[in-house]
């Protein structure tokens, strides 16, 4: 059967740090090398593993396993708290190494990145470059640092190739071996196809990756995905690029799981105010203003509450954000004990704050915000802050972001 695969020579490289946080700790503490260990955000009785070493994974201790379960599987299991400065340094090193090979590179998260070699004059094969990057990570960062390298004609296949032989693998996927590769995997092994999606595919008779590949565009668009995503998947599976577009910024927010569930109004307000200030930083970092505000929370007894509001004028300063957030927060059912709370700003639009306002008080507030941001940039995390956030700043910890790296430079500045 002719699948119309992309015949182009693979030019995209995906680099993935194996068990990044655990490897970083094993590098730092030689006593941990070769032992089952993991890291967690905050050590507590019921904390979860957020990164496990390969020795731990071999025993069935994976990401998301609770401490008690891990200890039952392996009584010698070692758990450390995350050390963000160590991981940001790893990230910076990976970034520095990737920059040496192509001007077109993107970090997809703290431990993985993509180098696009389209338009780059290559004097050697991508496989050679991949092996060199692996060597450099070991010599320039640490002997415990292992990376997986995947090479493919598009970002999707490069990522799939990077996950083919873990740990420390280097694989290439292209039109010559793609069919054999699909024959050897299940639907759930495809990046982006989790249980819910695979169930949807199976419901329409797509039982294997090869069936998925053989499905017509119209069938995927109209019957399976019921959107343009059907076309994207049709092309992506064949090695054509559909994942190099910048994502649209829809909202800016932050959430926080309380160490101990609480209904104490003053304490909660201080913590929420602190969250609102960090969201304000993110908003200004992205150069946008927001028209919508939402505050949400989940309760200790189950269930939750949220409220949102669209504003006539956009907001930008910490004072304006907190004013709106606190109004919404005051509407919550006050007797409920809160377990998780968060806020987000939406309906974002490019900031026009560089334009002069007609109103004196608006200009003053803008200048004040700009001055505070600059001082905090220079002197570090929350050098100047609202007095009301004092309790919050001691309770809400900045954790390592797992998703996109949009705010990473902001965190590096303020870490």
């Amino acid at each position: 059967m002719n699948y119309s695969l992309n015949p182009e020579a693979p030019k995209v490289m995906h680099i993935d740090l194996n068990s990044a946080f655990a490897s970083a700790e094993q590098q730092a503490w030689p006593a941990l090398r070769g032992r089952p260990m993991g890291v967690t955000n905050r050590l507590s009785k019921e904390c979860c593993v957020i990164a496990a070493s390969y020795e731990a994974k071999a025993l069935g201790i994976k990401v998301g396993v609770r401490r008690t379960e891990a200890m039952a599987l392996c009584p010698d299991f070692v758990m450390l708290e995350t050390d963000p400065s160590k991981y940001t340094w790893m990230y910076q090193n990976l970034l520095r190494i990737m920059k040496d090979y192509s001007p077109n590179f993107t970090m997809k998260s703290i431990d993985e990145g993509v180098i696009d070699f389209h338009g780059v004059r290559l004097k050697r094969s991508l496989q050679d470059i991949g092996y060199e990057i692996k060597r450099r990570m070991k010599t320039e960062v640490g002997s415990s640092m292992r990376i997986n390298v995947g090479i493919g004609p598009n970002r999707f296949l490069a990522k799939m190739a990077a996950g083919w032989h873990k740990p420390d693998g280097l694989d290439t996927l292209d039109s010559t071996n793609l069919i054999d590769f699909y024959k050897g995997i299940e639907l759930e092994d495809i990046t982006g196809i989790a249980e819910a999606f695979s169930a949807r595919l199976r419901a329409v008779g797509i039982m294997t990756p090869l069936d998925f590949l053989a499905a017509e565009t119209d069938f995927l668009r109209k019957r399976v995905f019921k959107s343009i995503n059907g076309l994207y998947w049709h092309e992506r599976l064949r090695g054509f690029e559909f994942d190099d577009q910048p994502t649209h910024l829809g909202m800016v927010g932050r959430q926080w799981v309380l160490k101990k569930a609480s209904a104490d109004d003053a304490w909660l307000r201080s913590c929420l105010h602190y969250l609102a200030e960090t969201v304000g930083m993110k908003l200004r970092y992205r150069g946008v203003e927001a028209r919508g505000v939402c505050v949400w929370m989940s309760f200790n007894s189950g269930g939750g509450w949220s409220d949102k509001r669209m504003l006539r004028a956009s907001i930008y300063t910490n004072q304006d954000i907190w004013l709106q957030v606190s109004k919404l927060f005051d509407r919550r059912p006050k007797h409920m004990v809160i377990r998780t709370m968060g806020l987000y700003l939406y309906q974002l639009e490019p900031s026009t704050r560089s334009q002069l306002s007609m109103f004196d008080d608006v200009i003053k507030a803008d200048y004040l915000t700009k001055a505070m941001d600059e001082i905090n940039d220079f002197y570090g995390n929350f050098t100047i802050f609202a007095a009301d956030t004092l309790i919050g700043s001691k309770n809400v910890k900045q954790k390592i972001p797992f998703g996109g790296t949009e705010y990473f430079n902001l965190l590096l500045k303020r870490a």
Partner: protein
Amino acid sequence: MDPTVAINERVDVVAVYRRGSETDVRCIPHRMRWRGQDIELTELALRHPTVQGKRMIHVFHVSDGSNNYRLEFDAEGLTWNLVAMMSGGLA
């Protein structure tokens, strides 16, 4: 569970400064005196920078072949602190 032991004590350190490339570690703690005992440091496992406000701190994870130590050099105060240690036997 967590085998690191917090110490947080000022220590004397002899460090070697080497001429190296941009990516090489050029300052290597060689020996440390802690509680009257001289400890020979045989492995530099990892060095990374961090900041505390505007203070630059260089974190050195070192080993004497048996125990592991986290040393921090405060680039403003020019002081060395033994922040934590981990026994090689993890006890």
